[in-house]
């Protein structure tokens, strides 16, 4: 299973993530050219896009973990989905924090009700709600079941965010790479390689954080059971 593999590789992944992050920062500072129209603020692109990619990946994993949990009733899949949701919210927060900084520098506004921005904010609200729901449910089993349903339904927002720039007129440019992207994206090769390096670095960082979070979450759940058992035996 993915979570077991991640735990086994967590040290190697953390080391790889650290090296890749340093390389990505060096590439952004020294290798990627300064864009002619936007200037230095365009370099926020190398943080904003990889954060968004990791956010999508995390919520995709929540979807997979939630489907598997409802199907197999294996709590390991619920733990996997929960940890991915937590990391997804973290990276979604980073997307929502870096976006306005870049927006202010290029559009002159911190926030506009652009379809992609609005849908990303809705995604953040959905998965923050997921974490609140998990914390406030009456029982662990109920929290897992309700969370799984929300994890699946909430994922419907992800393709909407991706295709929003193609379907509706807004401030966001069309994707530069990937599904629906412009071929080559018109990106300078040095910009493209720096972006790819940043994408790999952020993915390694996400996987290494997931490799740390899953055993911790499992230990928390076990400790909760022990606490409950000790209260039960004392009464």
């Amino acid at each position, binding site marked *: 299973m993915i979570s077991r593999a991640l735990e086994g590789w967590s040290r190697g992944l953390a080391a790889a993530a650290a090296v890749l992050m340093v390389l990505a920062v060096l590439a952004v500072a020294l290798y990627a050219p300064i864009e002619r129209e936007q200037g230095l*603020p365009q370099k*926020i692109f190398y943080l904003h896009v990889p954060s968004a990619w990791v956010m999508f990946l995390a919520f995709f994993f929540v979807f997979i973990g939630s489907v598997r949990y409802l199907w197999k009733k294996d709590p390991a899949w619920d733990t996997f989905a929960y940890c991915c949701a937590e990391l997804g919210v973290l990276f979604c927060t*980073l997307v929502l924090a870096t976006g306005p*900084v870049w927006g202010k520098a290029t559009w002159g506004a911190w926030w506009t009700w652009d379809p992609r921005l609005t849908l990303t904010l809705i995604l953040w609200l959905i998965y923050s709600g997921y974490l609140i729901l998990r914390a406030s449910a009456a029982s662990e089993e109920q929290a897992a079941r309700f969370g799984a349903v929300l994890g699946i339904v909430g994922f419907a927002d992800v393709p909407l965010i991706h295709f929003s720039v193609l379907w509706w007129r807004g401030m966001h440019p069309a994707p530069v790479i990937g599904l629906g992207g412009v071929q080559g994206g018109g990106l300078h090769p040095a910009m493209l390689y720096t972006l790819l390096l940043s994408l790999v670095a952020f993915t390694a960082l996400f996987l290494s954080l997931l490799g740390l979070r899953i055993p911790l979450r499992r*230990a*928390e759940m076990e400790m909760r059971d022990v606490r409950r058992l000790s209260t039960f035996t004392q009464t």
Partner: protein
Amino acid sequence: MGFMVAAYLVVWAGLFLYVFWLARKSRKLAEEVKALREAIVRRGHE
């Protein structure tokens, strides 16, 4: 320059805060395990 630095600071601060929060959670859990172990040993002696 200011906007770029602000964005990088926000991302690195966010990531460090999350790792710090994980480390704190882990330390708290380790303390709880230690207390539990001591309680079990005490109960064994009684």
